[in-house]
């Protein structure tokens, strides 16, 4: 059964903070929940489904439902890192279609900056009991060098250059200048990026996203409730999810799970790449964007470097505007999980509520895509396609 057109995003809220030294993690979850409900025109008592991932401390819904004193009949704690909250949107649509809930609340929050994580070059905080730990931890695996190896291989196989990767950051910086909440608001050039310090070959410091505190929340509901509210109607028309790992040793870094999740979402939505007016593409690193755009079919495999160059991702300039909030590279990457903010900016674009300098005209169909986990080890891809009704 397809859930196409059966669920609507009626509330979307991005916390304005980027450093929350004076707040608890649970408090941030509640603040974004309150913000998304207010945006939708709903109240806490309307919520009957709750979705969160491992950024919610404790047993996820168990502790958060109690903290927020919600009365829900459906919970989901799917955890795939930064793509979790995108998969939650798809799962919320499924739960709504099955009648298991009617108003789903999805929250993300965290405070890695306040807790002292200022950079991504530190070893990953993995669980020593996870099966892969002993085969990776001795080698100094970090988020940064996992993604860097993907970039290195992409350059080797396809001739992609550092200058091409830099264009992703340049595009995000052009958008971030209009976002008063963005962490990095200065417009940068290709030269700025390639001249920034090399952190893990071939990635430079400015190929990497920010580390920020904060969070975001979404409200997903059914058609009847959506139509009763005063917000523009943003309908989910396609969704796909796909974990991809090391395939028992047959590691292939030339593509990501987007090559599987993307076609599933496009097939369900019944639209093509040419129909997408705006795309939120998870930009943990510049290479992540290049890889995902290829795998989603916006260009041929290996042509991603050329595709992102010369401002092609800048709103009002290029053919495919992405991450008009400034993305994870310049705006926000709360709790090191960028899927939530990707959905929020797609909703803003479809509502016509993005900043006027970056609003895509007649934005009727938008895509949001994310990669949770490590692009070079194991990750989960999630693709969502929305239509303004």
């Amino acid at each position, binding site marked *: 059964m397809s859930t196409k057109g059966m669920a609507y995003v009626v509330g979307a809220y991005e916390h304005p903070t980027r450093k929350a030294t004076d707040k608890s993690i649970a408090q941030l979850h509640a603040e974004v929940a309150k913000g998304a409900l207010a945006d939708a025109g709903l109240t806490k008592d309307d919520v009957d489904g709750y979705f969160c991932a491992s950024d919610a401390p404790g047993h996820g819904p168990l502790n958060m439902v109690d903290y927020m004193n919600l009365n829900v009949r459906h919970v989901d704690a799917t955890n795939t890192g930064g793509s979790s909250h995108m998969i939650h949107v798809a799962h919320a649509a499924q739960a709504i279609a099955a009648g298991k809930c009617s108003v789903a609340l999805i929250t993300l929050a965290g405070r890695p900056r306040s807790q002292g994580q200022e*950079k991504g*070059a530190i*070893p990953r905080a993995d669980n*020593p*009991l996870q*099966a*892969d*730990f*002993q*085969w*990776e*931890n*001795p*080698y*100094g*695996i*970090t988020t*940064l*060098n996992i993604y*860097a*190896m*993907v970039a*290195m*291989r992409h350059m*080797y196989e396809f001739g992609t250059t550092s200058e091409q990767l830099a264009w992703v950051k340049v595009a995000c910086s052009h958008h971030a200048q209009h976002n008063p909440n963005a962490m990095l608001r200065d417009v940068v050039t290709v030269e700025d990026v390639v001249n920034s*310090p*090399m*952190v*893990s*070959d*071939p*990635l430079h410091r400015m190929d990497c996203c920010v580390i920020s505190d904060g969070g975001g929340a979404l409200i997903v509901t059914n058609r009847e409730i959506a139509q009763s509210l005063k917000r523009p109607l943003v309908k989910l028309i396609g969704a796909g999810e796909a974990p991809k790992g*090391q395939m*028992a*040793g*047959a*590691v292939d*870094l030339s593509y990501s799970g987007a090559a599987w999740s993307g076609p599933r979402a496009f097939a369900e939505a019944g639209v093509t790449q040419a129909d997408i007016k705006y795309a939120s593409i998870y930009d943990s690193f510049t290479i992540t964007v290049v890889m995902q755009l290829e795998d989603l079919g916006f260009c041929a495999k290996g042509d991603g470097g050329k595709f992102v160059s010369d401002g092609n991702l800048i709103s009002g300039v290029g053919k495919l505007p992405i991450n008009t909030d400034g993305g994870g590279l310049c705006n926000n990457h709360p709790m090191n999980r960028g899927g939530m903010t990707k959905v929020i900016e797609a909703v803003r674009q479809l509502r016509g509520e993005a900043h006027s300098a970056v609003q895509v005209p007649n934005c009727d169909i938008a895509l949001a895509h994310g990669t949770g986990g490590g692009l*070079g*080890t194991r990750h989960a891809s999630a693709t969502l396609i929305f239509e303004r009704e």
Partner: protein
Amino acid sequence: MVERIIPDPNPNPETEAFWEATKDGRFMLRYCGDCGKTHWYPRAICPHCFSDSSEWRQASGRGKIYPYSVMRRAAVPYAIAYVTLEEGPRMITNLVDCALDELAVGQDVELVFKQSEGGYAVPMFKPAG
């Protein structure tokens, strides 16, 4: 020169045999008695066909760099890599005993063991000589 401290692997009952063999300088791979395929990292149940009749065999220790990356933001810079083993699987490892700026994708490498913090022999690779 300051050496990088290598964290311990944290073996478990499923993998103890692997780490025991490394003490004698042997680098072992799992082969499936049913589907005939080898895999990495080692598991009790074959991840290709779910057979439980896999066995350990010593690997040649030869391979090629698939990609690598030099981590510059560390107390002691180091190279992480995927190495394509001669037997087929690709594994995450470190490239050691080499000039970090002279590594190349596709380069031939060979096995070398380095001691972890707690005394485990950890399989790594150096340029083939």
